[in-house]
């Protein structure tokens, strides 16, 4: 039990505070003004004149009783084993944000993410202390971003498709999940679900046709996309088998090949050509081939290794493939295995044109929900100083004072 920076290790003893309260109540009753008859007031008037201190007084509780009550109070507090806890111990909270495309759909003029952040902002304003830390967890900040306010980057729609956070990893008391809806609520973590109504719109692409969902049905809109919407980039420096395969795949998907890299591309296949080359055998999905590759690639945010030989040589991320394969001999084995293997990789990474959001995300997300983080991780161990000894000493002094007052008055 903690109260005003004081933690009680045995708070049950605080019930003893009823004793001094009862003593004071009884004392006040006992000390009430009594009406007494006397034969004449003359002597008392003389006493009043001689000693103004004998005039009526406000105090109703005898001093000895007040001292005793104070001693009992202090004794009860001492038995409760109080400790002074440094109130300034900073705390840290982890904020896990769902940045999938559905979070950026607008509902009532604001995105679902904005809606989900609203209770969080109120919580920050009222509950977060100056010394506390908020750590934002996102692909963009693998180590976490420490910022007291919502990072502006979060509010911008990510170009690439984002995988859902690893919620289970962050089901802890100091974490807060932020999404539109949770199929399974966290056990320990807090959460903020924006909820929200369905947002009809584009849910897919087939060639140049767009698939729209009107809330009930899916409608195909032919020639909805032009070349400008469907650009892809295939690095011309790629070895022949890979370049040809990627270009064939892009053509089959209806993409438009671009000669230079642009931000709006739905897919890019790039060669990292720097560093010393080496020759070795590559193999995956039933194909193998001799290759000349550069140094091992270093994954960046969101990238995963797809092919490795003495280190990653193909890194994949939504909308992007990077490779260090500078030359590739014709693959051995089934030629189809080579094409299927790479084709599936490209299929899994291609992005959708702007505005295309999966129908699951466009559908209604239910009601908003909020639960604040239950606890925090103290960044420093708060210093605790036991106070019981001092309180016991004070109680003893007060008890002695009560005894002295009573003895003097006796």
């Amino acid at each position: 039990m903690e109260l005003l920076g004081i933690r009680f290790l045995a708070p049950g003893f605080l019930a003893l505070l009823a004793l001094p309260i009862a003593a004071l109540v009884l004392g006040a009753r006992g000390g009430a003004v009594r009406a007494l008859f006397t034969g004449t007031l003359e002597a008392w008037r003389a006493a009043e004149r001689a000693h103004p201190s004998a005039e009526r007084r406000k105090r109703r509780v005898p001093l000895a009783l007040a001292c005793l009550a104070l001693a009992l109070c202090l004794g009860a507090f001492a038995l409760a084993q109080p400790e002074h806890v440094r109130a300034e111990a900073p705390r840290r909270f982890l904020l896990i944000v769902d940045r999938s495309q559905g979070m950026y759909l607008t509902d009532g003029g604001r995105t679902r993410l904005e809606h989900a952040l609203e209770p969080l902002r109120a919580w920050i304003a009222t509950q977060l202390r100056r010394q506390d830390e908020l750590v934002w967890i996102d692909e963009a900040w693998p180590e976490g971003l420490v910022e007291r306010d919502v990072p502006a980057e979060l509010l911008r729609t990510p170009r690439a498709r984002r995988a859902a956070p690893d919620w289970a990893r962050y089901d802890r008391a100091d974490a807060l999940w932020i999404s539109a809806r949770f199929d399974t609520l966290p056990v320990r973590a807090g959460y903020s679900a924006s909820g929200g109504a369905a947002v009809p719109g584009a849910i897919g692409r087939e060639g140049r046709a767009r698939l729209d969902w009107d809330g009930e049905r899916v409608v195909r809109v032919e020639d909805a996309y032009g070349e400008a919407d469907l650009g892809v980039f295939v690095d011309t420096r790629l070895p022949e088998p890979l370049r040809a395969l990627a270009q064939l795949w892009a053509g089959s998907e209806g993409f438009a090949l671009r000669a230079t890299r642009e931000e709006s591309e739905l897919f890019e296949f790039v060669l990292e050509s720097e560093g010393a080359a080496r020759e070795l055998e590559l193999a995956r999905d039933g194909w193998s081939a001799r290759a000349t590759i550069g140094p091992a690639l270093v994954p960046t945010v969101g990238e995963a290794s797809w092919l490795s030989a003495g280190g990653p040589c193909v890194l994949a991320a939504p909308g992007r493939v990077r490779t260090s394969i500078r030359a590739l001999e014709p693959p051995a084995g089934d030629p189809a295995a080579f094409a299927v293997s790479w084709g599936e990789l490209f299929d899994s990474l291609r992005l959708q044109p702007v505005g295309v959001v999966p129908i699951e995300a466009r559908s209604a997300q239910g009601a908003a929900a909020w639960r604040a983080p239950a606890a925090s991780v103290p960044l420093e161990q708060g210093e605790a100083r036991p106070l019981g000894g001092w309180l016991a000493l004070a109680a003893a002094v007060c008890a002695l004072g009560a005894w002295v007052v009573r003895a003097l008055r006796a």
Partner: protein
Amino acid sequence: MPPSARRPPLPCPTVRLDAGLRTRAQRFAARLSAARGRREGAARAGLSTGGVEFDHYRPYRPGDDLRALDWDVYARSDQPVVRVVRPEAGERWTILVDTSASMGVGPPGKLQRAAECALALAFSGLREEAELELVDLCTRERFRCARRAHAAALAGWLEARVARGTLNVAGLRTELAAARGSQRGFLLSDLGDTAEALDGALPRGVRWTWIGILAPLEIEPGELGAVRWLDAESGEELALEVDREALGAYARALEESRERLARATAPRGIALVRGSSALEFEHLLARALRA
């Protein structure tokens, strides 16, 4: 401070003289008479007024006052005898009983103790065959008796006294003067303002004994804390904290009052005794009659 609306009743306004008390009063009077008998030949202490007459002779016992020895008889019979005397017939005693409201303070009640004293004094007077007059100083009611047969009526009259009203100084002065012709006079009161009543001349020939009775609460109140003092007679109130300092000042004021009264009574030959109503009447009277 004006009197408040909620005023408690006086704690001890009435008198009760049960059979046990009457017996005690009779016994006290008998013991007093016997003690006087043992001091025959000497000037009678206590109740002696000086006006005595011969009763009988008895043999001399060692310790008897030689002045009481009848030398004529001794010369004639060669037997040492002493003269036993008794008060002169027709002696009159006046017993004034203060029944003002202040006598209702207690416990034990001051009026109760005053009535007990009056009863014992009256029984003693009857034993001495004195004519008694008891006076209620507030109602001015009187009760006269001269025979032991009146003892029951005497007790009844005392039991009918109730502490109420105020003691009028002029009335007290009148009653003191009215005791003219009495050989003994007793005043049973808390002696509040009685010094003022002595301004006028007291009748000559009356041997006065004033017995002041105060309640224990008036003599040693103790540290009572916050108290609303109620003047039993005037109804006035005074609220104050009765602590050590107040008690000291009160005791000094009380002592000054006592000394003032002593200075007023001593020159007039008044035997003055003050005691607590917590004392038994025998103790009070013994002190008073020794004074």
